[in-house]
C-alpha cells in the first residue's frame, strides 16, 4: 500500500536530559520513506533546531540509532510502511533517543563510553613481514565481527548496562565483538584471555541474546563472539589440562 499523502502523527523526545519531554508533530508522507526521512522533514519544515545524528542514510555508519515505538533500530533503515503497520491507527509513532547513554538533546545521546572502552583494547599483534597468509575460512570467522557499524544498539539493549549500569565492570557486547575479532584472528599473537575475563568482564553476560536480536548488521554477537570468548576463559581458568599445556609450551592455544 502506498503511503503517499497519508497524514501521520509523531511524538518525539525534545529537550535536554532530565527536562526533555515528548513533543507532537504531524507531516504528510511520501512513498517509500524511512523514519529518518520523516525526522528530516520535521526538521526542515517545522523545527530547524531538532537534533538528530546521522551520516550515511544507507545503514552503513551506525549514527542514527534510536528507539522507534520502543524498539531500538536504525532510523535510516526502518521503513515507514512497517512502522505504520505496527502502530495503532490514529496513534503517533514514538521516537526516543537510546536510553542507556547520557542524553545530549532531542534524539542525540553521548556514546563516548564505547570509544573509551575501545581505547583499552590492545591492537592486533601479528607478524612483521607483509603479505600475511591465511585462507578464506579463517577470514570468514573474523569478517563477521568486522561488519559491526558501531551503532551501539546492542549496548543500549543489554540489561547489564541499560538496567544495572555496570559500565565500569563490563565492556558491553560491541567491544566484546571487537575482542573476538582479534582473539580469533588467525595471526594475532596477543594473549587476551586474562583481560577478557577481568577487565572486560565477559562473565557478566548471562546470554540473554537481546543484543543479537537488535544488531542491524546481523552479527551473531552472543553465540559466535561472546560464548566463544567465555569458553576460552573457562578453558584457561577452569580447565587444568589447558593450564599444564600452557606452562609447558608458553604458547597461545590455536582453535
Amino acid at each position, binding site marked *: 500500500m502506498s503511503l503517499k499523502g497519508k497524514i501521520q502523527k509523531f511524538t518525539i523526545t525534545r529537550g535536554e536530559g532530565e527536562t526533555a519531554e515528548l513533543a507532537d508533530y504531524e507531516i504528510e508522507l511520501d512513498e517509500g520513506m524511512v523514519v529518518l526521512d520523516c525526522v528530516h522533514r520535521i526538521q526542515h*519544515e517545522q523545527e530547524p*533546531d531538532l537534533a538528530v545524528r546521522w*551520516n550515511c542514510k544507507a545503514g552503513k555508519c551506525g549514527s542514527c540509532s534510536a528507539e522507534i515505538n520502543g524498539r531500538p533500530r536504525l532510523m535510516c533503515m526502518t521503513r515507514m510502511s512497517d512502522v505504520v503497520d505496527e502502530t495503532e491507527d490514529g496513534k503517533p509513532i514514538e521516537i526516543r533517543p537510546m536510553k542507556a547513554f547520557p542524553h545530549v538533546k532531542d534524539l542525540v545521546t553521548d556514546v563516548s563510553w564505547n570509544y573509551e572502552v575501545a581505547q583499552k583494547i590492545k591492537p*592486533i599483534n601479528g607478524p*612483521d613481514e607483509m603479505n600475511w597468509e591465511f585462507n578464506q575460512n579463517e577470514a570468514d570467522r573474523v569478517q563477521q565481527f568486522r561488519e559491526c*557499524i558501531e551503532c551501539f544498539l546492542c549496548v543500549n539493549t543489554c540489561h547489564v548496562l541499560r538496567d544495572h549500569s555496570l559500565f565500569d565492570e563490563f565492556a558491553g557486547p560491541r567491544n566484546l565483538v571487537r575482542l573476538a575479532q582479534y582473539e580469533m584472528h588467525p595471526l594475532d599473537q596477543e594473549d587476551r584471555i586474562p583481560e577478557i575475563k577481568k577487565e572486560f568482564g565477559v562473565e557478566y553476560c548471562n546470554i540473554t541474546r537481546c543484543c543479537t536480536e537488535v544488531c542491524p548488521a546481523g552479527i551473531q554477537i552472543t553465540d559466535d563472539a561472546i560464548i566463544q570468548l567465555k569458553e576460552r576463559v573457562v578453558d584457561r581458568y577452569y580447565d587444568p589440562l589447558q593450564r599444564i599445556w600452557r606452562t609447558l609450551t608458553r604458547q597461545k592455544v590455536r582453535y
Partner: protein
Amino acid sequence: MTEDYKKYEYDVIVIGAGGAGLRAAIEAARSGAKTAIITKSLLGKAHTVMAEGGCAAALQNADPRDGWKVHFHDTMKGSKWLANWQMAEYHAKEAPDRVRELEQWGAVFDRTPKNLINQRNFGGHTFPRLAHVGDATGLELIRTLQERGIHEGIDIFMEYTVRHLLKEGDRVTGCVAYTRVDGDFHAFSAKSVVLATGGITRVWSVCSGSWEYTGDGHALALWAGAELRDMEFVQFHPTGMVWPPSVRGILVTEGVRGEGGRLTNSEGDRFMFDYVPEMFAGDHAETIEESDQWVEEIVSGKLATVRRPPELLTRDVVSKAINSEVKAGRGSPHGGAFLDISHRGEEAILKKLPSMHHQFKELAGVDISKEPMEVGPTAHYVMGGVIVNAESQETTISGLYACGEVASGLHGANRLGGNSLSDLIVFGKRAGEFAAKRSKDLAQPVIDDSQVKSAITDMLEPFNNEGGENPGLIYDELRDMMQAKVGIIRTKDELDEAIEDLKNFDTRRKSAYPGSSRKYNSGWHQALDLKNMVDVSYVATLAALTREESRGGHTRDDFPVPDDEYWGETLNIIYMEDGEIKIRQEAKEEMRDDLKDAINEVKAMIAERAAEAGGEN
C-alpha cells in the same frame, strides 16, 4: 558580545577522520609530531565507511600480468589524460604496500586460493585489481585505521566543525571550530594543517554521499587563498538506486557489474554493446557470448582469456548510456535501467554482495538474487579539488596540505572505481609525513585573537536573523537547482541560470534563521554549511561553463565532443581574489619520457590481447 574560546597547540592538525585523514594523522604521529584530528562526525562514521567495491592496488595476487605500469596507464587513460602523471605514478607504485600495511594493522580482506589478498574486477582496470571485503571495503578500511589510530597518541576532537583557517601573512597557522554538541568555540594553533574533509556531492539532490559532503574543505582552502582545479569534473556514478524516491541516489556498487551484472533496457537489450567509445574500441567484449565467457572465467578463479563485458566501461560512459536510453524512452518504470545479477545465484550473491542484497531487500523490497534492480546515475565523487604538490601534498599556500577527495590531480576528468580508497592511503601517508617534517623546524604560531573573534562573529550570524527562513528549506532547494541545472548533461543556458540562482541563494542563506539554541542545532549547522555549499556550487558551475567540450565527468550538450587540441591540454584553475571567485586556464604539464614509454608498453600489451581475443578484426 565577546565570546570565550578555548586554545590548543599542535604540530600537525588533521581536519577530517575519513581514510585520508586517519592515514595522515597516523603518519604524522609516527614521525614524532604532536598531532590532533578534528572531525565533524564521530570517529569511524566518515563518508569512507560507505565505500563498497574495493581498493585498487596492483598486488598481482589475482593476475600476475598486472603491475604498476598497467595501473598507471589505466588511471591516466581513465582520467582522459588530464591526471597529474606524477601523482598517478606515486599512486600506482605505492598502493600495494599501503594495502599490505592495512592487513598488518588488522584488515581482513577476502582471500585468494593461495591465501593472499583477493582482487576483483572494476571498470577501467585492465586486470582484477581491487582488494575488497565483500561489498563493505570502506568499513574495513576506516575501522582498521581507526583501531590503529587510537593507539598512536593522537588527540581526537569528535563532532567539532572547522569553519575558518587561521593565517599569518601568507601561511596557514591553525583553525577555528565550533562543537556540534555545545556550540562553543575552539582555536587551534598548528605548524601544519592537513585538509582531509572529503567531497562536495551533497550539493546535488540525487547523490550517494553522506551529510558531511558539503564541500567544507574545498571552501576553507579557497577562502584561505589556495587554488583548486578540475572542479567541472563530477562523477555521476551510473548505478544509484532510483526507487522508492526517498532512497534515490543511494549507491549500488560497481562490484555488481564486476561480478557479472548485466545492464538492460525496457526492451531487454544489453544496450552497453552500442555505447563503446572509440577510445575503448577493442578493449571490451563484442558479443554476449564473449561477455559470458569472461564472467565464467573470472568467477571460477581463472585468468581471463577474453575481453570484459561493456558494462565495465568507465563510469562516465555507462552513466551517459543509461541517460540516453531513458531519454530514448527505453528506461525502466522509474526512469533508470535494469541491472541484473540474479544469474549468479543466491549463494554467490550473499557471499559477494551481502550489503547490496540487504539494502534492496530492506529499502526497496526487491530480492536481487531473484529479480533485477532498477538503477540510474547519482552524483558520487568530485574529481576536482585543492591543487597539491604531488610529492608532499602541500597546497599552493604554505602550511596547508590536502589529501583524499578534497585534493585533486590523481583523477583528472574521471576517476576509476577503487582508485579513491587507494588515493586516501597513498596520499594520506604522504601528507602526514610532509606535514610533520615541515613542523619540525617551526616555532609554535601564536593564535591571532582578532581573526578568531571575527570567525566567531560569522558563526553566530544566523542567530541574528529571527523570523528568517528555515535553513533546511534553502538547503533542499539549492540541491534541487544544482540537480536540474548543473547535472550530468550541461548547457550554457542552464549554467548561466545556475550562476544567477546561486547569487539568490547566497542572499537567502544570509537571512536564514535556525532557532535560538546553540546546542546540537541541526539548522544552525545547515545555515553555516550553506555558505560553503553556495561557493562550491558556484565554483563547479563556473568551471563547467568555461570548459566548452565534453570529457569524462563533464558533458556539454552544446559541445558534445572532446576538444583534444585545446581542452585536452588545458586545466581550469579556480582561485579567490578580493573576495571574488575567479577562473583561469593553465596548460597541463608534459609527461616525463620514461612514463610515456610505460604507457606505450601497456598499450601494445592491450592491443595484443585484443588481437588474440577478437581474431582478425
